[in-house]
């Protein structure tokens, strides 16, 4: 009987620890993401168009609903003619007005947002932060710095991650998952090829794409990887482009 009670207590403790760890991990991911978003927004502010932000939020939430992950998703446009987008841990996604302006329709925007959603789902940036923390922990011999770093330090570290970029494998994975998500949502996977192909015109020293090319594989490599992943086996929507969809996308662009 005593052994039974002891076993029960151990199980309860293990359960509580599991729950506690889950809650802590989730809240920490959001905290890291919030600091990272603040750092990016320190470089480029949110645009003031409420209708444009609302549109991005609607599209982003709809795309995110095609994954099983439970995040508090935040989608926004930031004022910069640089061509780039950013995914932060915990569900923060920011797209530059420079990138939005080179897109031609909502399907293309769906790929951009889905690519960023995929980064969040795969925890690409959060894993880099965790590795940095572990390295710091090892070098300092501390018991725990995981929860100990302050918000300004987190923001600063995030700036370095976004300036340096992820490894190519993470970007290819985000392309693949992004295409899956947008296709599941009913968008044309060919739009992903159109977006990546359009980046080819920014080769060279165009300052708008300087950071994008420094932190991502070349467009040609990305096209290759999508074709080798079987993008051409995916179904394409049968219907013609929807007029309402195109109209609301045009309103977004006009509102920038």
């Amino acid at each position, binding site marked *: 009987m005593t052994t039974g009670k002891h076993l029960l207590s151990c199980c309860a403790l293990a359960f509580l620890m599991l729950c506690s760890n889950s809650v802590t991990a989730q809240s920490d991911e959001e905290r890291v993401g919030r600091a990272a978003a603040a750092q990016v927004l320190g470089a480029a502010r949110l645009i003031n168009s409420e209708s444009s932000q609302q549109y991005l939020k609607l599209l982003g939430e709809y795309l995110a609903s095609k994954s099983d992950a439970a995040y508090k998703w935040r989608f926004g446009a930031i004022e910069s003619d*640089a061509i780039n987008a950013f995914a932060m841990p915990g569900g923060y996604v920011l797209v530059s007005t420079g990138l939005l302006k*080179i897109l031609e329709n909502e399907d293309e925007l769906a790929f951009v947002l889905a690519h960023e959603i995929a980064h969040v789902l795969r925890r690409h940036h959060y894993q880099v932060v965790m590795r940095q923390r572990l390295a710091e922990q090892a070098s300092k011999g501390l018991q725990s710095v995981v929860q100990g770093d302050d918000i300004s330090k987190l923001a600063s570290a995030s700036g370095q991650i976004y300036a340096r970029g992820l490894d190519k494998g993470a970007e290819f994975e985000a392309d693949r998952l992004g295409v899956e998500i947008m296709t599941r949502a009913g968008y044309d996977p060919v739009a992903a090829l159109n977006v990546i192909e359009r980046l*080819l015109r920014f080769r060279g020293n165009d300052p708008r794409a300087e950071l994008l090319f420094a932190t991502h594989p070349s467009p040609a490599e990305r096209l290759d990887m999508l074709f080798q992943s079987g993008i051409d086996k995916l179904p394409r929507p049968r219907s013609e482009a929807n007029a309402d969809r195109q109209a609301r996308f045009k309103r977004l662009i006009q509102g920038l």
Partner: protein
Amino acid sequence: MREDANAFDKPDGKPTIVRFSAGSNIRVLRRDGFWIEVSVAGKTGWLKASQVSFAASPGGSVAIDTGRMGGGNIVSSSAARGLSAKDLLSGQPNFNDVSRLEAIQVAPKEAQAFALAGGLKPPPNGIRLSSPPQTALKSSAAGGASSSQSVSPGSGMKKKNDDDW
């Protein structure tokens, strides 16, 4: 080109007698969906884009003239405002804008209504892409194309390590 391939008469069309040999350089004229129209030594035809490797050129990338690249709504500028590596490193965190971002709320029903209004019809389940082998990129980059507008046939589909959804 690493693999011989017969050209098609059009996207999703029929194979023609035009045959492109492995090792030869091809020039991409345009892309239509998952297909590309190519030219090889004066012969033209359509290939599946998955049959070629875009990154195989020594220059590292391929210019695809789709006829869509010259237009659009791109506004040229001499310098990018914000978002350089330096901006990201030296900027001060802006938590006020984070709060603004967090204040934008959308109910799940609204997102579904958004999809409905846009005429979006999700396809049946089973949408998946495979994860190419780690060597895929290296092998494609080792192709024999010699000009910036040339590509080499890819190594085809190899399914391995499917993404774990």
